[in-house]
Every structure is written in structure tokens, then in C-alpha cells.
């Protein structure tokens, strides 16, 4: 089967973001960028499915400015076979991304699309579900286990209160949770090999998708600062404060 994996270029999860002084956005100039952690898990899962002989081809796709080719190369170094970049300098909302991915799905006809459950920048958690709806595919979000079984895929999901297992008809969209796997590191030889793997560049116009949004960000502000509290000298004092001052126990 063919697997399509969507990867997003985001700020590295270790970086402390700073809001711009004019409150228009966070400041992303000169900060370290990386592949979104949940997308990395999606790539790893696709590679494992290929290693098990379930998948035959893995296509990694990313949407955005030219720099997102770095994240496609990372996916290729981890084991994806080829890449597709949809080049646009516009900022894309989840619905626009889902529409662009739907157009790629129409062209590539994958049996399985893997995405992260959310990106750690916008924290929307929408794209996989929207793609599944637009492409009329079954979906499983927050996957912690994936087992392909003929024309179906069984997915165990992390839900409130525990785990739930669903059986989906292929083609399906699956979004990954943290527990699904532990991504490997790309070795230097694989990074070198990845440079020679094919990477197609397309535009939203090629795909016939208008990337508009009904959402406008009015302002971006830092959250309220939390003030340091008091030091307590003993466990007794701590229990007393929690009972009588904070009244939380």
C-alpha cells in the first residue's frame, strides 16, 4: 500500500517563544525550527509499516515556504521514498491545508494518510479530521497502535479515560499520539541518501485550491505572568497552607 505522510515545519519544541512587541504574532526570526514532534511519529510509523512489508511506498508532503523542504528531507532521511512540497508563502489555516492535502490525495491515491494529532505551534488539532471529511475517508485520531488487516485497519486510540479500538475501512486517515512509537534518529549516510531522493514542488494553483481563511488574528499576547509565591519551611506548614490559605485540599 501507499502511505502519504504530512509533516509540518514548526518552532523547535525546546525554544521559548517570544511574542513580538507589536503583538501581531510570535517572533520566528532566527529561531530553531524542526519537524513537528507528532509528525515525526507519523513518519516513523509509516517507515515501520514499510519495514513490516505492509507499505510499499511512503510519500512525505509538506506545505509552506521553501524552508519546509528541510523537513521533507528529514522525513526522507528517516525512510520516506519521495517528497512533495506545496510552495506558498501565505500562512495556511487547517482548512486550507486539508484542502491542499485533499488535492494531493486525489492525485496520489494513498491507502493510508498519516498525520500528527496536532502541531505544537497553532495547537489546532484539526487537519487530519478535516482531510478525512473532505476526502470522504474514515478516520482515527490519537492513535497509539495501528494494525493493517487486509482492507481494514485496526487502530487503538487514546481517548478520555482510556483506550478505544476502531476498525476502519481503507483508505483511512490516522493521526498520531505520543504513545504510538519512538522515532528513530536519521543516520548520516541516510541523510546523504535523502538528498538524492525525488522532491516535487507544486503550487496551490497547480492543485486548484484557493488558500483563503475566514479567520483573522487580531492580536497575539503573552499569557499572564505567574508570580512566584512563598517558600514554606516544612511539610506541616505546606499542609496547613493548602488547607487554610489556598483551600484546595
Amino acid at each position, binding site marked *: 500500500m501507499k502511505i502519504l505522510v504530512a509533516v509540518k515545519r514548526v518552532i523547535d*519544541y*525546546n525554544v*521559548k517563544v517570544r*511574542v513580538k512587541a507589536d503583538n501581531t504574532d*510570535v517572533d520566528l526570526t532566527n529561531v530553531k525550527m524542526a519537524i513537528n*514532534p*507528532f509528525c515525526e511519529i507519523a513518519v516513523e510509523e509509516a517507515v515501520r509499516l514499510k519495514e513490516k512489508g505492509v507499505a510499499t511506498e511512503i510519500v512525505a508532503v509538506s506545505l509552506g515556504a521553501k524552508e519546509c523542504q528541510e523537513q521533507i528531507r528529514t522525513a526522507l532521511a528517516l525512510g520516506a521514498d519521495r517528497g512533495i512540497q506545496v510552495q506558498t508563502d501565505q500562512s495556511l*489555516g*487547517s*482548512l486550507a491545508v486539508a484542502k491542499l492535502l485533499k488535492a494531493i490525495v486525489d492525485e496520489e491515491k494513498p491507502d493510508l494518510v498519516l498525520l500528527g494529532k496536532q502541531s505544537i*505551534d497553532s*495547537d489546532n*488539532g*484539526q*487537519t487530519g*479530521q*478535516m*482531510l*478525512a*471529511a473532505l476526502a470522504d475517508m*474514515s*478516520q*482515527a*485520531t*490519537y492513535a497509539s497502535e495501528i494494525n493493517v488487516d487486509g482492507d481494514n485497519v*485496526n487502530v487503538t486510540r*487514546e*481517548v*478520555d*479515560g*482510556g*483506550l*478505544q479500538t*476502531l*476498525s*476502519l*475501512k481503507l483508505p*483511512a486517515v490516522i493521526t498520531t499520539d*505520543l*504513545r504510538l512509537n519512538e522515532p528513530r534518529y536519521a543516520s548520516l549516510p541516510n541523510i546523504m541518501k535523502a538528498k538524492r531522493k525525488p522532491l516535487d514542488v507544486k503550487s496551490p494553483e497547480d492543485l486548484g485550491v484557493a488558500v483563503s481563511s*475566514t*479567520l*483573522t*488574528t487580531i*492580536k*497575539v499576547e*503573552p*499569557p499572564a505572568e505567574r508570580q*512566584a*509565591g*512563598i*517558600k514554606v519551611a516544612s*511539610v*506541616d506548614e*505546606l*499542609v496547613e497552607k*493548602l488547607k487554610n490559605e*489556598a483551600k*484546595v*485540599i
Partner: protein
Amino acid sequence: MAILVVADHDNSTLGAGTLNTVAAATAIGGEIHLLVAGSGCSGVAGQASTIAGVSKVLLAENAALENRLAENVSLLVAELGKDYSHILASTSTDARNMMPRVAAVLDVDQISDIIRVESNDTFARPIYAGNAIATVQSSASIKVMTVRSTGFDPVSAEGGSASVETVASSHDAGVSSFVSEELAQSDRPELAAADIIVSGGRGMGNGENFELLYKVADKLGAAVGASRAAVDAGYVPNDMQVGQTGKIVAPKLYVAVGISGAIQHLAGMKDSKVIVAINKDEEAPIFQVADYSLVADLFDAIPELESKL
């Protein structure tokens, strides 16, 4: 125009987040209708009808809705939702699973996880794991949103007297089916919904030592969490991870034990009402956000804490 709130439930009990979501709907203003979609869930509709501020409860029952599979429920919600100005649901996994599908079917953007209502088209939501708050205005004809429970005080579950109206539903996309579920056996509350959380970090030393935290948690009726360091070191499974790539929590009380307070961890818990830090390193960054700081060896302090609760 009226607001449609999609109730969170398990066919027998109404989810607590529904009350916070109705509070968000009340802040937007307008008539509030509550949709209970499931199977054998008329009891839930009964519970829903007494929620303060709800004027009508829509009850949709269909075997295909029993497990609230996104493919099926989203078709129903999108069809009913056409007549509403806003469609809201709490940020339960069911809603986060289903609502973006509703938005896509209606061809509108979705706003996830709102924490504040500025006006009927402008909302605040955290981005970058809570390290920035974005105020977003929507010109969409139907505003599809999920509501972060910790952003809104719940409305009263009593005092309302909504009528219950049955709506027909034959929505079944037929592409997915429920196989099984395995709900956590623990008597401890679920991490995301707990009022009190006790979390351990690398300072716990090993997995066995988490037993110390479980004992404290059981006395407090608390859930137990962990930092990424504790998960990466293999002390506990990663579904216990609190932080940017783990779970985002905002309990009434968060007790951080042996956690230094790296930004990724703070991102997951700094909206907690009261934070307690127990760490032997008095320079640990966690003390900068803690309301009550105790500089002590956790192996002395935690057993003592347990004995004094």
C-alpha cells in the same frame, strides 16, 4: 441566531465539560440548544434539560451513533448545524475528534480550544502550548468551536427546564466500526479532568519510587502525572506525560515533585490554580511559578506529606 452545543456524554452520563461549554455559549449570547446524539441516551437528554440557560434539548438516537464515531456524528451535527450561528463542543476527545469534520463538511474554519469570548465573533485561544494567547476574529457564516473547560466556570446543572425534542437520525457513513475499549481501571481520576494532580520528574530516580506519589495521590483523590524526563527515562508510560507534547492540564492543585520546571513542562501545567513545588535544588525554575515552594529531599518530604494528609 441560536447556538448549538453538542453534549459530551457516554450514553448514560452527561460529561462535566458540557456545563463549561454552555457557559461559553451563554457568554456569546443567544438561544442555546443542546444536542444529545448517541444510542440509548434519553437519560442524558433528561440530565441536559435541567441545565441552566438551555432552552431546547435535541435528542438524536441511532445505533450508528452509539460510540460517537466521528464519521457518523459529524454528518448529523453538520446537517442540524446549518440552522445555527455557532456550534460548540467541549474539548473532550470525542469532540476534538468530530468537530473538525463538521467544520470541513460546512466548509468553514474551526476555532479550537477557546478560553475567552470577546464578542460573538471574536475569541481568545492559547497557541504555542499556552506560551501565547491569540485573539481571533471569525467571519465564517457558522462558527464551529471547541471550548477549553478550564477557561469557563460551569453553569448550574439545575434550574433549567428545556423541552426535549427528538430529531430523526439515520446518519451512518459505514466506513468505521467500534471494536473494543479499555477504560483505565484505576480509581484515580483521569489526568486531563482531575482536580488535583501529583507529578513526578527525573528526581524520582526510578519507576518504583512513583509508588510514593501514588500513595499521596490516593489520599488526595488525585491523578498522577509525570514530566517528559521521567517518561524518557522509562519510569512511567508516556500517557502520563504533562507538557507541551503531552497533556495540558489546569487542575485546582498541581504538586510538582522532583521536577525542575523546563519550559515544555510548564507549558502543560502553568494554568493550574495552585502550584506546589517540592525540590531539593532551590535554584530550580519550577520555584518561579510555584505558589508554595518546599526545598527538601522528596524522599523525606513525600512520605511525611502522605502521613499528614
